[in-house]
């Protein structure tokens, strides 16, 4: 399963939910799979998708908040797992699309194949699922409604040359429409 296909699968189950997507190709994939006002597309500040998602989750406890993260992104802000695991937001679903590389910058390796992101997340008190296939990903997403967060779905994806186009919406517009939509 390539990342873009995995993003599409998750989007099927997050149509009415808030989504914060990490900078780089992940935001592009979300934009081409499911464009909506309740998406916050990051185009900078690498590593912070999960922190932004946490802030929203704490203030909007009745909404489900998805974070679309990457292995490079979370490894840059591992402390975020500690904070999320400590504060235990029930409405946060943290998805890590893990291709073991920084695909957006040319495919350089991360350390994600040397350590276990899932084990780190377990140690910080997330409910963790590690999935490799579309079918299992769908099963986990279906049952996620019945579970309390924070949930981490570690999605192992393969690298690919498939590219989604750039998000052309201005950052200020992304923010303004997002804030209006989640009022």
């Amino acid at each position, binding site marked *: 399963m390539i990342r873009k296909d995995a993003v599409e699968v998750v989007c099927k189950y997050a149509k009415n939910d808030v989504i*914060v997507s990490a900078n780089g190709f992940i935001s592009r994939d979300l934009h081409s799979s499911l464009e909506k006002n309740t998406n916050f597309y*990051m185009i*900078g*500040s690498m590593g*912070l998708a999960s922190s932004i998602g946490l*802030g929203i989750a*704490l203030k909007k406890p009745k909404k489900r908040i998805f974070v679309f993260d990457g292995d490079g992104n979370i490894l840059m802000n591992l402390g975020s797992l500690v*904070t999320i695991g400590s504060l235990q937001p029930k409405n946060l679903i943290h998805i890590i699309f893990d291709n073991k590389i920084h695909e957006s910058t040319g495919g350089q390796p991360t350390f994600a194949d040397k350590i276990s992101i899932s084990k780190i997340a377990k140690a910080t008190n997330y409910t963790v699922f590690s999935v490799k296939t579309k079918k299992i990903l769908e099963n986990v997403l279906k049952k996620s409604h019945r579970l309390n967060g924070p949930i981490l779905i570690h999605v192992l994806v393969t690298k690919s040359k498939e590219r989604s186009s750039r998000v052309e919406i201005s950052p*200020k517009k*992304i923010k303004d429409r997002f804030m209006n939509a989640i009022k």
Partner: protein
Amino acid sequence: MNEKIQRKIFQYFKKNRIENFIGVPDSTLKHFIDEGLKSKKILIVNREEEAIGIGAGMILAGSSTIMFMQNAGFANSISTITSLIQLYQIPMIFLIGWRGYLKNDAPEHEKIGQIQPKLLKNLNLENKILTDKTWEKDCKWALSKMKKNIPVALVIRREFLD
């Protein structure tokens, strides 16, 4: 800045509907932070950039937020400030403890303390230095900027050595 004023500054922001105070501790700001801890309004996290991310999320959710940190941590966060807070025009107030303001502060603060005013200027981040006499006016100024979607910084100088 004395203890009493720092506690007053916290209460001033709380009274003016700032809902969240997030950051990384700094000894220059310890009385402000202590006052917030007593009110259970303070969230202390691991790193300043992370704090800014969480604060940004809360502001996106419509909840007003102040960040507190030392100038060293502020310097850590410059890319986050330019590519998240300023780029998306997220109205955040930074409260920054200025280590290295005194020339004989600890050596690790010397360089960053020296360039602190220039750093804010080069970022085009509007800012004021809070003093015992003028803090209320400048805090009010920060709140008015927040309403206009403009992020700003308030600086408290480290005027003692320990």
